[in-house]
């Protein structure tokens, strides 16, 4: 997605030359949020239901090399090597390799019945086993875990969520809304095991039961591991880029080397990019919210077009990059919408409505508003968009 948005952005900014998309997945770019919701519960849905439309600007001069993963980058020779050994030379490179789910934190002993959800293929495989009556155990209570729990419960599965956290979605929406989300899940029969992790698995050749650290044993036909993600940066190990947590980039999304120097022809966008956001502070972070692949892609596209046109990119890069993160989530009839970096907050405050119906919650770090999240009340939440700009940027 971030790669697609970058290409569109470069075209919009005047770049007319060739573009190659190199992707590990066999599918053209698609939208991931439905993978834990509509696509997961609708038999027969596939790529066509989630594919991004390819705009006319990308119908010409574009080569798709799909089902091939990048395995190394040589910034001196300006080539990327793929897993078939083919070299792809570049004038400008966009790193948009995204994330992969963290694995099960204990030995899986090669057992079947263990799933993750990141790709379309993951979702189709999971859909096959989320049958009515299935005993589904979800490890993790972030957005992916909670949305799968809601979908599985709606499908008639028996769902247990196992989480080290006190309440689901704690980091993203805080204790008040997290507790409310838990209540809504429990209304639909989902059981929560908080402050817990997995101790062991029982079964052969597929998992049949899981044992929690407290000793509780749960029947388990399907174990879903949803304990966060890691950036796909291993292929950049010898590239000389700073990939200590994702790819460090400057305000122009240009990759920074371990020597601290900016690579003017290498960009990183989407979930894999780590950058400071002057709306909040000067700490470089990876932010895994859905709107940022688009924001980073548009920005990088502008820079790439300027770079390839031989223009001086420094003024553009120095202008900084201050996207407003946004996320949403649908679980049952709860429609969450948020702006900002809620997880930077040290306190949250209910300012309108009631959590068991509709409400708005503000998030503060000290005296600074860093985020807002609502259940419903969209106009009220949307109205916060302009309140995050720092005085320095205005």
């Amino acid at each position, binding site marked *: 997605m971030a790669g697609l948005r970058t290409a569109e952005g470069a075209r919009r900014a005047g770049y007319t030359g060739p573009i190659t998309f190199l992707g590990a997945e066999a599918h053209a770019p698609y939208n991931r949020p439905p993978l834990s919701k509509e696509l997961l519960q609708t038999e027969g849905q596939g790529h066509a239901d989630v594919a991004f439309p390819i705009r006319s600007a990308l119908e010409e001069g574009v080569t798709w090399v799909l089902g091939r993963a990048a395995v190394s980058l040589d910034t001196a020779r300006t080539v990327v090597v793929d897993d078939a050994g083919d070299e792809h030379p570049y004038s400008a490179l966009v790193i948009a390799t995204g994330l992969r789910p963290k694995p099960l934190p204990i030995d899986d002993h090669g057992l079947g019945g263990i799933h993750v959800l990141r790709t379309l293929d993951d979702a189709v495989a999971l859909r096959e086993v989320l049958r009515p009556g299935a005993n589904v155990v979800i490890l993790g209570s972030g957005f992916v875990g909670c949305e799968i729990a809601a979908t599985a419960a709606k499908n008639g599965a028996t769902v247990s969520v196992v989480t080290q956290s006190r309440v689901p979605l704690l980091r993203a929406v805080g204790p008040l809304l997290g507790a409310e989300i838990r209540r809504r899940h429990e209304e639909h029969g989902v059981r929560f095991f908080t402050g817990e992790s997995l101790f062991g698995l029982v079964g052969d050749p597929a998992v049949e039961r899981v044992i929690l650290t407290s000793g509780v044993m749960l029947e388990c036909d399907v174990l879903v591991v949803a304990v966060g993600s890691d950036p796909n940066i291993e292929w950049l190990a010898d590239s000389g880029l700073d990939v200590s947590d994702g790819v460090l980039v400057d305000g122009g999304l240009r990759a920074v080397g371990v020597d601290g120097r900016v690579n003017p022809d290498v960009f990183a966008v989407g979930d894999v990019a780590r950058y400071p956001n002057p709306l909040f502070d000067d700490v470089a972070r990876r932010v895994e919210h859905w709107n940022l692949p*688009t924001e980073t892609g548009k920005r990088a596209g502008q820079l790439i077009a300027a770079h390839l046109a031989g223009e001086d990119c420094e003024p553009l890069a120095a202008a900084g990059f201050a996207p407003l993160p946004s996320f*949403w989530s*649908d679980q049952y009839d709860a429609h969450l*919408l948020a702006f900002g970096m809620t997880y930077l907050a040290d306190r949250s405050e209910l300012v309108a409505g009631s959590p068991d119906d509709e409400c708005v919650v503000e998030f503060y770090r000290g005296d600074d508003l860093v985020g807002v999240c609502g259940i419903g009340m*969209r*106009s009220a939440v*949307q109205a916060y968009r302009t309140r995050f700009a720092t005085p320095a940027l205005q």
Partner: protein
Amino acid sequence: MIKIDVDMDKCQHYGQCVFEAPEVFQLNADDKLEYQAEAPDEMLADLEAAADVCPMQAILITKA
């Protein structure tokens, strides 16, 4: 002219599009999306931006 189609079965009325192209998209008093089905060509970039930010990817922009 540009033609705007919103798949109202997909739309969850998040209103992200309103911020990108307020001339075409609005949330009404009940927080439901309302939109115009046509817009002039010069709005193409704004309308594509609105389609891009739609969480449900429910907005289709076509040049008529």
